[in-house]
């Protein structure tokens, strides 16, 4: 018996080992014992296995109490199972919760299930694993991104908005027109520009034609006349009118 146990490969590297013997729980222990008994878990002798398990637990005097519970629960369960398997079939009058055969098949199922998961785990971890056996691109690159706007108005939308505009009685916008008149200041500027030409008498009417920006003749005449009167007052210009309502002539005053 002890030989069997010592031949089991012990795993001491992992930090999650529960027992000093290297088993990860009672089913793991059962599996290890079973492997010594038979290859096919479906044909395992649960009776023989229970015997071995109970014997093994009994030899583990140093079993730590905090980890022992799982093993001891299993041991007592297997002891119960063993005694049931030993006894002849129960009195059919007594209603049993569970038969010995059911218990045996249950423990065999649990062993097979854990065994399947252990195998699956081995298969998974034997696959080429990213960052262990194989590596991904170290320097990923980004690409440009362009967003294009699409306007989805229909012809109907377009026409509708146009017609709404045409039909609705929107007041015409207020437009501020440029006022067509000549200020006294601008009239005076005008006369100053032609001042040098005023060395002889010139008809006042003629100077009005020199400005084309303002078409309002009355405004031009009134403002220019006022400007001239100012200039007469300032002794810059002489004026003369030969007859009543006749032409007005102007001439600059020679200052030397």
């Amino acid at each position, binding site marked *: 018996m002890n030989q069997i146990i010592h031949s089991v490969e012990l795993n001491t590297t992992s930090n999650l080992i529960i027992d000093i013997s290297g088993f990860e729980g009672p089913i793991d222990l059962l599996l290890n014992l079973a492997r010594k008994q038979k290859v096919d878990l479906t044909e395992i002798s649960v009776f023989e296995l229970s015997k071995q398990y109970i014997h093994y637990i009994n030899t583990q005097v140093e079993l730590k109490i905090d980890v022992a519970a799982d093993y001891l629960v299993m041991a007592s369960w297997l002891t119960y199972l063993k005694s049931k398997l030993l006894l002849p079939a129960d009195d059919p009058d007594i209603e049993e919760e569970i038969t010995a055969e059911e218990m045996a098949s249950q423990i065999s199922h649990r062993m097979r299930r854990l065994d399947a998961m252990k195998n699956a785990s081995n298969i998974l971890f034997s696959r*080429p*694993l990213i960052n*262990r056996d194989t590596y991904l*691109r170290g320097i*990923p690159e980004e690409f440009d991104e362009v967003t294009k706007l699409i306007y989805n108005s229909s012809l109907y939308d377009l026409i509708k908005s146009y017609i709404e505009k045409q039909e609705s009685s929107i007041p015409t916008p207020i437009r501020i027109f440029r006022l067509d008149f000549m200020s006294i200041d601008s009239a005076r500027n005008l006369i100053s520009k032609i001042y040098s030409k005023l060395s002889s008498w010139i008809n006042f009417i003629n100077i009005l034609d020199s400005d084309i920006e303002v078409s309002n003749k009355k405004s031009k005449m009134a403002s220019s006349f006022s400007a001239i009167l100012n200039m007469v007052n300032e002794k810059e210009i002489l004026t003369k009118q030969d007859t009543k309502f006749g032409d007005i002539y102007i001439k600059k005053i020679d200052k030397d």
Partner: protein
Amino acid sequence: MKKSFLNRLGIKPNIKLVNEKSLSEFDDKNIVEAIVFASRDPVHIDYLITKVSKSDKSYLNNILSLLKEDYKTRGVIFEYNENYCLFKTSPLLKAALSDEYQETRDLSRAAKETLAIIAYHQPTTRSEIEEIRGISSSKGSLDVLLDYHWIEIAGKKDIPGRPILYKTTKKFLLDFNLSDINDLPNLSELKREGLLNSLEGK
């Protein structure tokens, strides 16, 4: 996050992707190669279809198989499944690369078994894992696996006590080279043998 990045992962941002189509199969192969090579994450097939000249799955599949062939004996290999494709270093060069890049530490046997149990039984709870392993402490293993982003919390089970449910992640599929969870080794065989059912109720 950039829109193109989401698209490459197969996540559609709510703005339409209207890529200009390229010219020929030769160009298409180069384009697919460049996109997948440039990405660290697996690139989704749906995104690649928007980049090639024909929006046709079998046309793209042909390009993917050509690329796989091109890289068959190289230091970098091209892999694809129904959803994703990626480049990775050849597992044959494991020894030459491992000393510099290895990130995956060796896990304990308990953690490895716990991962397998979650993968095959997901979503599952800690007590179900413990029941299968026949041992009443699996907490350390769950922490390690969560740290690795191989498992994640998948809500709570609708039973008294509402225990946390665990399932495997996309990273698990990527790292173990599985196209999806139905791709797990021996899955149907184990199901058939009734080994993936919990004992509860028996």
